[in-house]
């Protein structure tokens, strides 16, 4: 028969076990922390920027007696005794503050997290300022700022989501929406926020943030593509204006090219083939500018092997064959003054402003030249957007924060988001009031054509299931064409065949 004695060792063991068990429970999330819940209403003041109203202005005509003396006769003329009422519509800017109750009646505290690809020291510092500002305005909120490089963003989002370790909000590329939206990965934008976005954002930005008729987040940065050219090189070659047609573009490229011993020293045009988006986005702009289409939106079948697309591929080949392009050149060669022109996005304004060898005043912006089967240049626009993870427990608080960060700070002022993008990156904000508030900053010769393109003439990048894979196939097949390994028609037939199979497979999945 064993007898248990209460020894000092047993007491220590029991104590230790108790500590371990408590720690284990805490580690497993079982520990219940009892907190006093204080329900507090968050009142937000949202400034309304502009109110259009009607005013009735009454114009009263004062009765006036005119006495005319004609010799001895006294004639009294009395003007018409009418009271003219003039009704006119006037647009008056009214500074009006509307008090809106937050959708969240928050308990003790809300801890939120955001994930972006803005990870440089300056960007992080600016975002910490923005988050401090929000936390001061909404004392119960605490926001953690997370960032990864853009190239790892998709990996971080998907792996984090799969592992259950995900932030509440993401700033993501609209090309990923077809993967996120149908699976319930991202939350759809609440109705009341959607109506605000519909009224205040450029249509191309809204289209870019939408998929299958639904809006998936706040459109943030808008990037359109236009022709960037070196004015000094154009002047030296006697070219007065940027090309507006493909014929003019090929001629300009030929005139601005300089070669020595068979090697191009100054390229008339730059096709940057190493990067998928930097190559495909301009190519799709040319396709549309030649009257072609990427995709049939009804059937979701690719239209990339139709005659306008084949002509677009052939145009690139012609440019290479006439000796105006060196496929080893990269965008930094434009910066250093060795390339006459290329099609680039507005975000390049930032690096060009500080690093263009010939001085930023020598950077010209022209339209996308129209092809022989097209009528006008069409610019592709792509977007990034702020979205909310569908699994977050802080959905309302997350939308509240996004609403705040995307709303003007005050009448006539920009939103924190717009301010950040324009100051840090020279990127054009999607919100129209931001474009107005930052008009001075965005009104130089470089930005003006891009803003005009975004507001009027751009089209959003086509997005459909499997878009990343299809884009990759298109990129590789066009590489084969431009390196002389394949013919345009054969290469584009292959894109359509493989691409349609991928779209179909993804649709079924």
């Amino acid at each position, binding site marked *: 028969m064993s007898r248990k004695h209460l020894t000092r060792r047993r007491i220590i063991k029991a104590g230790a076990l108790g500590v371990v068990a408590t720690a284990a429970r805490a580690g497993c999330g079982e520990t219940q922390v009892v907190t006093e819940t204080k329900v507090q209403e968050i009142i937000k003041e949202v400034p309304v920027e502009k109110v259009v109203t009607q005013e009735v202005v009454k114009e009263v005509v004062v009765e006036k007696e005119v006495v005319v003396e004609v010799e001895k006769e006294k004639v009294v003329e009395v003007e018409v005794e009418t009271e003219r009422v003039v009704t006119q519509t006037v647009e008056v800017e009214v500074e009006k503050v509307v008090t809106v109750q937050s959708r969240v009646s928050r308990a003790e505290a809300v801890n939120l997290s955001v994930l972006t690809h803005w990870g440089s020291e300056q960007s992080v510092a600016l975002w910490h300022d923005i988050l401090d500002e929000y936390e001061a305005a909404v004392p119960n909120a605490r926001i953690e700022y997370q960032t990864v490089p853009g190239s790892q963003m*998709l990996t971080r989002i*998907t792996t984090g989501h799969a592992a259950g370790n995900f932030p509440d909000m993401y700033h993501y590329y609209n090309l990923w929406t077809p993967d996120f939206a149908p699976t319930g990965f991202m939350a759809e934008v609440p109705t009341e926020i959607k109506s605000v976005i519909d009224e205040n954002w450029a249509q191309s930005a809204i289209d870019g943030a939408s998929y299958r008729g639904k809006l998936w987040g706040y459109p943030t940065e808008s990037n359109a593509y236009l022709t960037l050219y070196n004015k000094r090189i154009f002047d030296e070659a006697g070219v007065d204006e940027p090309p507006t047609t493909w014929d003019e573009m090929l001629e300009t490229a030929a005139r601005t090219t300089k070669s020595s011993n068979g090697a191009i020293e100054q390229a008339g045009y730059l096709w940057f083939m190493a990067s998928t988006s930097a190559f495909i986005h301009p190519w799709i702009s040319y396709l549309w500018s030649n009257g072609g289409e990427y995709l049939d939106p009804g059937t979701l079948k690719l239209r990339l092997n139709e005659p306008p697309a084949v002509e677009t591929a052939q145009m690139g080949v012609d440019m290479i064959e006439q000796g105006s392009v060196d496929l080893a050149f990269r965008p930094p060669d434009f910066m250093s003054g060795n390339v006459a022109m290329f099609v680039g996005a507005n975000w390049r304004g930032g690096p060009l402003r500080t690093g263009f060898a010939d001085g930023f005043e020598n950077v010209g912006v022209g339209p996308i030249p129209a092809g022989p089967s097209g009528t006008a240049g069409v610019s592709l626009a792509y977007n990034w957007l702020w979205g909310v993870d569908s699994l977050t427990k802080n959905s309302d608080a997350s939308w509240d924060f996004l609403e705040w960060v995307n709303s003007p700070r005050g009448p006539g002022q920009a939103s924190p988001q717009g301010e950040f993008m324009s100051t840090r990156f020279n990127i054009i904000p999607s919100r129209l009031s931001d474009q107005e508030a930052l008009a001075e900053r965005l009104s130089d010769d470089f930005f003006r054509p891009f803003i005009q393109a975004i507001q009027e003439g751009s089209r959003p990048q086509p997005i459909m299931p499997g878009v990343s894979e299809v884009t990759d196939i298109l990129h*590789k097949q066009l590489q084969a064409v431009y390196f002389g390994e394949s013919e345009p028609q054969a290469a584009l037939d292959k894109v359509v065949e493989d691409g349609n199979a991928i779209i179909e497979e993804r649709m079924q999945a």
Partner: protein
Amino acid sequence: MLLGDRLKVRYAQRHVVTGYLFVAPALAFLLLFGVFPIVFAFGISLHNWNMVTPVSEMRFAGADNYSHLILDDSLFRKSLGNTFVFTAANVLIGLGLALSVALLVNTRVKGRTFWRVVYFLPYVTSSVAVAIVWENLYHPFGLLNRLLSLGGIPSQRFLASVDQALPSIIGVSIWHGMGYLVIIFVAGLQNIPLEYYEAAKVDGAGDWSRFRHITMPLLKPTLFFVAVVSTIGSLQIFDLPFLITEGGPIDATETVVLYLYDTAFTFARMGRASAMSFILFVIILVLTIIQIRLFRERE
């Protein structure tokens, strides 16, 4: 059983339990971060999964991912071919050059330590920095083309050429990794007793004879280690093609791991990517076994 024996058994049992308790954290770590991911990845390779849908909703695909890769996916076959070419060149040329440099810096040359540091520096340089520097060196206006032009050789496209891109990446890889191999070889060479060389010299053996009959046989364990490690590393090449060429032009530098990465994280096909990783695992396993046998046979 005698009382003494019982006490011994009990003592031994207590020690076994204590031993297991000591290794338990390391074992748990190994199971959690080593074994479990491998088993999970194999499970995924038998499914279609995009990482966005919950794990419970993965669709079973059987061996479809494997059969697709082996029979239908021409890009996978091309990436395998590129990887084999890269591995063969990187291992053979890299080892040859590293051994030559190790022999040189192991002699009593002036500034021996300095030269060792010079050769080791590229290895401790980050891949990103290496990629940026070499992109510029290979540029049409870069240093290499300037040097070629001095010799009257026309400008080369290097990274923008379908034929030259992979050899260009191999060149960077050899330059980047050679410092590590040199250090290992130098350590191996310094383990060879000098008396052997002195005795051989007395017997009239020349430099080549001493290298062939003393250095090489005694360096074999080092050579084996370096060959295996270098082969495995080369088959897993990712960073340089990812950073410099993104697999282009026209897939000329697409390697298995780069294709695997794109398949998993750009195209969200986790099942197919996992199947690729297991095919690569089998290839590495087979090649390593062959290398072990080759070295054993020679012993």
